[in-house]
């Protein structure tokens, strides 16, 4: 199986990206909420009554029809903190989709929302329902409306059956408004905690910006930050690329937009509003001074806003997207600012005069003053390459030909998850959540329970479940089953590489030509035959004949020979990693039933099958044993071992090596008992999943460090190294006893061939004559100095205080020089 590429996860980035996903979700919903609340608050105020007391909705539909109730219900769901509000949001989104008057953009947006609901962190609420529909929607790109509507029905049912009674009960308790604390389970509590923590941070940030003092301090902090990296203004955090030089403008823009919104809320007349909006655009989004866009938003977004303003006039949310965009970057720096504030005393701040409250006009004047901002207008492909790399690092630019945008890179680090359970929680990765017909084990894992596992990711290659081959298992003539051959264990190889040019990291194409030695002609594949030397002559074959030699049987696939008791499968019967067989209905219909019958009876009778396996293409037949395995599930209903046959490849007569060795001395009872005590103390339950491949992990980490420009690769604990401390703690005494009893011969380390040879060299008297005994001078005169060995020459040179490096000829020359 060829994987397109290996994917790593990255632990430090993990938390950050998590936060980002969290934030971006947060950034979708609040907007919806604010716009709704605004509308509905007015309604509520006009009716002067709490909707809960107004009347009792009879079912969910009632709530759905009534905007007031709907809003309350939504608030109620949000307060539950279990993501159930997303069900409602989904229903609303689909409802909107059903209108035919939507612009294509809007439709795309809605699809995006739906994807977010279904694939995002909140997807667990959907997946928990274990309804095949969700998996289907997830899998299809732009699912048809009918499918989405089906999902809507399903959700409505759940909301009605599960949440509606709760909602009614909640209202009956007489609590007005929505209480934000709930006594949910631990997981819910934790989620809620994260939520509240996040929201608190946002509120604090908003408060801080609105406060004159902290606003100024923050601004000066940003100024410092942008000065600090003025030669390297482009920063990447999460999935955002931004310029630090624009930070100051960002905060100005933000406060202007806030002001604009308060103007709007104060029912200011539309002319003033439009003028205000126009000024904001002129100052920040379409500035006459380079760069055109003064804040950290994409040109696309800027254009959209400008257009929006032109067509729709000054609406309240016209700057919303841009505000969000800058908000995120500002939020990051706000956090840093907070830390910085703690670290450095306020007094150490360089004294900054309180800036007068700027009007938009003079802020635009100011721009002209601090002009030396050279920032590329667009985050173009070149940006990361132009980005200077800190001098202490070797320059390692990312290749140009391969989407060098580092900004692309970070969010795309695919977190592949060690465990299937995590897969269901992973977001943004449709491929992982892929529940096929083949995979319905009857119960899907409860994703919500496994929330913690989200954090236990490992760096590992992600493998798609795909049969190596779909073929047939011939039980007997006329009885052929369809099966898929899978690979469940296979040594993971080191990541594949491509050759690149050292200078500018371009792709290097490798051409292989076959040349005829006799004629010098270039040969094509047709001109090639194959031979094998046989007693001095060449036995020549065509390519097809070679294949024929392997195809010894017309039947391709597995041909059953018969059954043997399981005990006949010996330890020595191992040749290569095994495969796994599972019935495939797409080859032969009805295979599953017969396969399962065969499997269950083989297990019951403790039999293994023997078969010939001729794989795909021109592979030679192999003898293999079919080892039955029954399905096992763990306590939470997750399949641990799948049902099917393991295909154990068997060695042939020639594959066994005939070895001769002596029988060792027999051990005494005492010795065996002592060894047993050691073993007993060092017993553990082996689990293959608990050991990571040290050399592979090392390579991954180095690669990752290079890619992300880290100074050091991440630390890695090699669990395959025995923990000697622990061993001594557990069995130190027993081991000491054992070595007393067993008298293992004094540990002369077993010498390897090379070492022995060297040792022999050293002890060779001919080559090791001390210089004192050799008359070097005499030898030089008689011209025999070449006969001396290097050590002798070196020793002599050292004794006369000369340099003793180089080849033998050099040494000889130096010795000769000495005497001349």
């Amino acid at each position, binding site marked *: 199986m060829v994987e397109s590429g290996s994917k790593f996860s990255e632990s430090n980035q993990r938390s950050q990206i998590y936060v980002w996903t969290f934030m971006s979700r947060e950034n979708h919903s609040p907007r919806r909420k604010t716009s709704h609340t605004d509308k509905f608050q007015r309604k509520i105020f006009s009716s002067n009554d709490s909707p809960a007391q107004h009347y009792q909705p009879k079912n969910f539909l009632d709530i759905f029809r009534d905007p007031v109730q709907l809003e309350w219900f939504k608030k109620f769901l949000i307060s539950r903190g279990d993501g159930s509000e997303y069900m409602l949001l989904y229903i609303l989104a689909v409802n909107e989709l059903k209108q035919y008057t939507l612009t294509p953009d809007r439709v795309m947006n809605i699809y995006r929302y739906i994807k977010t609901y279904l694939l995002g962190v909140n997807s667990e609420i959907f997946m928990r329902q274990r309804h095949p529909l969700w998996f289907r929607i997830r899998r299809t790109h732009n699912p048809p409306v009918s499918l989405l509507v089906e999902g809507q*029905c399903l959700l409505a049912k759940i909301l009605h059956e599960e949440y509606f009674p709760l909602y009614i009960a909640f209202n009956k308790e007489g609590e007005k408004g929505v209480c934000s604390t709930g006594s949910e389970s631990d997981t819910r509590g934790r989620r809620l905690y994260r939520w509240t923590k996040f929201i608190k941070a946002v509120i604090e940030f908003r408060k801080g910006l609105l406060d004159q003092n902290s606003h100024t301090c923050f601004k000066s902090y940003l100024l410092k930050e942008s000065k600090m990296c003025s030669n390297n203004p482009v920063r990447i955090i999460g999935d955002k690329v931004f310029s630090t030089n624009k930070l100051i403008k960002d905060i100005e823009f933000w406060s202007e937009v806030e002001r604009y919104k308060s103007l709007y809320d104060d029912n200011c007349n539309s002319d003033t509003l439009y003028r205000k909006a126009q000024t904001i655009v002129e100052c920040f989004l379409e500035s006459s001074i380079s760069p055109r866009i003064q804040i950290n938003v994409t040109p696309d977004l800027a254009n959209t806003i400008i257009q929006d303003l032109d067509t729709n006039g000054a609406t309240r949310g016209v700057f919303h997207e841009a505000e969000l965009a800058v908000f995120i970057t500002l939020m990051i720096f706000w956090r840093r600012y907070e830390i910085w504030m703690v670290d450095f005393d306020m007094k150490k701040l360089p004294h900054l005069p309180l800036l007068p409250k700027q009007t938009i006009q003079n802020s635009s004047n100011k721009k002209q003053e601090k002009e030396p901002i050279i920032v590329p207008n667009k985050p173009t492909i070149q940006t990361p390459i132009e980005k200077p790399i800190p001098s202490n690092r070797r320059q390692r630019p990312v290749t140009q030909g391969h989407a060098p945008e580092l900004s692309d890179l970070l969010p795309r680090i695919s977190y592949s998850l060690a465990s299937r359970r995590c897969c269901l929680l992973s977001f943004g990765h449709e491929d992982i959540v892929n529940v096929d017909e083949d995979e319905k084990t009857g119960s899907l894992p409860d994703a919500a329970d496994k929330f913690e596992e989200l954090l236990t990711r490992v760096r590992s290659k992600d493998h798609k479940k795909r049969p190596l081959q779909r073929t047939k298992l011939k039980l007997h003539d006329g009885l052929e089953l369809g099966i898929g051959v899978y690979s469940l264990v296979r040594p993971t190889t080191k990541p594949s590489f491509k050759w690149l040019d050292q200078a500018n990291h371009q792709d290097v194409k490798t051409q292989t030509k076959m040349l005829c030695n006799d004629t010098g002609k270039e040969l094509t594949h047709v001109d090639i035959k194959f031979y094998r030397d046989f007693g001095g002559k060449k036995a020549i074959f065509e390519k097809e004949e070679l294949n024929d030699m392997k195809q010894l049987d017309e039947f391709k696939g597995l041909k059953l020979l018969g059954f043997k008791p399981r005990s006949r499968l010996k330890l020595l019967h191992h040749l290569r990693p095994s495969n796994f067989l599972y019935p495939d209905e797409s080859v032969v219909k009805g295979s599953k039933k017969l396969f399962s019958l065969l499997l269950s009876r083989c297990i019951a009778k403790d039999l293994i099958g*023997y078969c010939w396996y001729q794989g795909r293409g021109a592979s030679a037949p192999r003898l293999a044993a079919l080892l039955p395995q029954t399905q096992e599930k763990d306590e939470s209903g997750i399949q641990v071992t799948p049902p099917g046959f393991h295909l154990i490849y068997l060695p042939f007569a020639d594959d066994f090596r005939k070895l001769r060795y002596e029988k060792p001395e027999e051990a005494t009872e005492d010795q065996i008992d002592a060894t047993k005590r050691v073993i007993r103390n060092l017993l553990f339950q082996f689990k293959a999943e608990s050991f990571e491949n040290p050399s592979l992990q090392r390579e991954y980490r180095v690669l990752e460090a290079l890619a992300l420009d880290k100074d050091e690769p991440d630390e890695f604990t090699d669990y395959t190294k025995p923990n000697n401390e622990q061993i001594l703690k557990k069995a130190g005494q027993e081991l000491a006893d054992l070595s007393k009893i067993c008298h293992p011969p004094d540990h002369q380390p077993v010498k390897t061939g090379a070492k022995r040879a060297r040792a022999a060299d050293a002890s060779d008297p001919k080559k090791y004559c001390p210089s004192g005994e050799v008359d070097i001078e005499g030898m030089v005169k008689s011209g025999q100095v070449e006969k001396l060995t290097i050590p002798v020459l070196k020793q002599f040179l050292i004794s006369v205080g000369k340099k003793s490096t180089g080849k033998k000829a050099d040494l000889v020359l130096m010795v000769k020089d000495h005497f001349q």
Partner: protein
Amino acid sequence: MAKDLIVLCIDTGPSMGHITAGQAESPLSLSIKIATTMLQQKIFYPTKDEFALVLFGTRETANDLADDDGNYANISIVQKFSQPDLPLLQYLLEEVKHSDISSDFIDALIVSLDLFQKCSGRINEKKIYMFTDAGCPFDDQDQLDQVLTGLNKHSIDLTIIGPDLSPSHDSAMNGSDYHPGDGDNKPGKMVHKSKAQRAGEEILQRIISQGDFASFSFSEALKALTHIKKTQLRQTTVFRGDIEIGPDYKIPTYGYLRVKENKVSSWKKLSAISQCSTNPGSMEVTLARTHHLGDEEQTEISKDQMVKGFRFGKNLIPFASYDLSSTAEPHLKCLQVIGFSRCEFIKRHHFIGDSIVTFVPPVTEGSQAFSSFAQALYEMNCTAIVRYCFRKNANPKLGCLYPHIRPDYTELLFFQLPYAEDIREFTFASLNESEHSQEEIESMDDFLDSMDLSEAFIDPTGDRCEAFEPKYVPNPHIHRMFQCTSHRALNKDSDLPKLDPLINDYLNPTFPGRTNVKNCLEMIQNLCPLIEIGDKKTKKANIFKKDIETGAAPVSEELIENMDIDEALSSDVSKVGSINPVKDFEELSKKHGMFRLACEQMQECIISLIKESFSDQNYPKAISCIESYREVCVKFKQPAMLNKFLQSFRNKIIGSSDNPRDQRHQAFLTLLVKEDITLISKNECDCDVTLEEARLFLQTLHSISTEVDAKNETQDDEVDDLLENM
């Protein structure tokens, strides 16, 4: 590397050419067959071994010992020690003919012995294979002792192939027809033994018994050579070091490869152009590999200007080897015990390496530590989990040491185990292994019993023994390669030979004992019908192929426009899905033997459509499903399927309880009445439901639905009132 020296000493005397009654081939041709097979196998797996060929009973005399007195006459050394090659093989096959002159086999032995005098180099073993039927005369028995001392002095191993010298020889002499080891068991063969032969055999018997040598009959020898065997490699260690438990306790050990796939050297490329030319040279092919940049000029660059780029996400990261070596600490050579685990935690299918390494103590003295370790593991049914690094900076392997204790040796077998990265956790659907009828179980058990292999093989002595024991199964591919290569080398331009029947016997074995299998098969086929689905690719390809063949009109544009890809792909319906249930159902029910299944699935589908409906959203779909279901039932004359379903319909949808939540789908019943869907009655199809009953059903449904409607209406009124109040 040490070599073996082998003398093939073949009798070409008159008796060798004599075909005894009941035998297909003469002793000489059998001898040649055996000798050539030996040579071919040596040639196929090239070794340093050298062969010499001595013929005795030839017209010519060509040996160093011969003198004018007629000593050592008629013995010719065809080939002195040299590596076997094709000319020697061809000589054996074509030139060696029997003559009418006999020569003394003891003289021949002496000539052969003499050959060993002149060889040099490191010699591993010296062997003489003598092929004779002992039919030649011999005169001086005095030389016999000389021969024996000579053989012993040079420690030469003598094997005599031909005469029947087995211990039961005496009984054979007494007229018994039993010849063990001779598979043919032809009665009366011994009768033809001449006096000289008997005397010769006696002498040979003496040599064998005195020198502790071996002898085989021709058929035994042929049988022993049927499987090509790789010449044993010298036993070399792959690891010398200590098993370390904790920092201080060390058990010295040597590691050897125990099982590893035997691979023959790969094929070499040859230029067909050169071969076709009138004067073919070496015909060799060289590979010229060049590296080019992707620019317009296709600039060639050298290897040292290149650097490896590794994928990270979709980017390629240039990665020079020094990047890794500079940071990494080396993996030291080791065999360290991490801990111990019970055998049951180690899954057989997790053995991952491509070889088994065995560890044994290097010397016998002081190996108690080793044997106590192995013994303790064995008695506790445990394995040692180890980290194994066979040399410095090799990739460390995780594995386990299994004790393997036999009467004459004790070893620890190392199996590599997977790392976390190597395990792919795929989920496979349950197979409902427990849901099989008694009948199915019984027929499968019968099948398993009749396919037994543990006693399926009948050996020549008539005993039953295990078939396909890996130890004795030859690799068919290598055997076939050997067969083809030697055939092609000897017969240029011939086709590939037919598959060796011996290999065919392995690939397509026939077990005479299996008589019951046919019956079991039929039973199983009936119980678990299998429908083969043709290869989709070929099916699609055939659509066009057929047109071409039959010369049908080209596909009209209209047809192409109307062609629905989905339809073309979805022709294999296996389940009634909720997207397009009517179509699925109709497709499925048409298939042979699937009607019942289709019905069951349709029922499920209808119920779930209604139950999952959000208000009345799914009702029209459900109605159309029921209509289609009804139609098909009438068509297949299975009215009971629908009637039963409809009768239990109300309960299924609404449930017997008065839970108000379940009441909401009563509206569907109204719809059902409105659509005038009734039970299938006598008039439509053969069944015992009268028209009246069918109508009655409708009425009951109606009454229920109206009742519910009334209830709903009052509720609606209330809502309206409330809304007005707002």
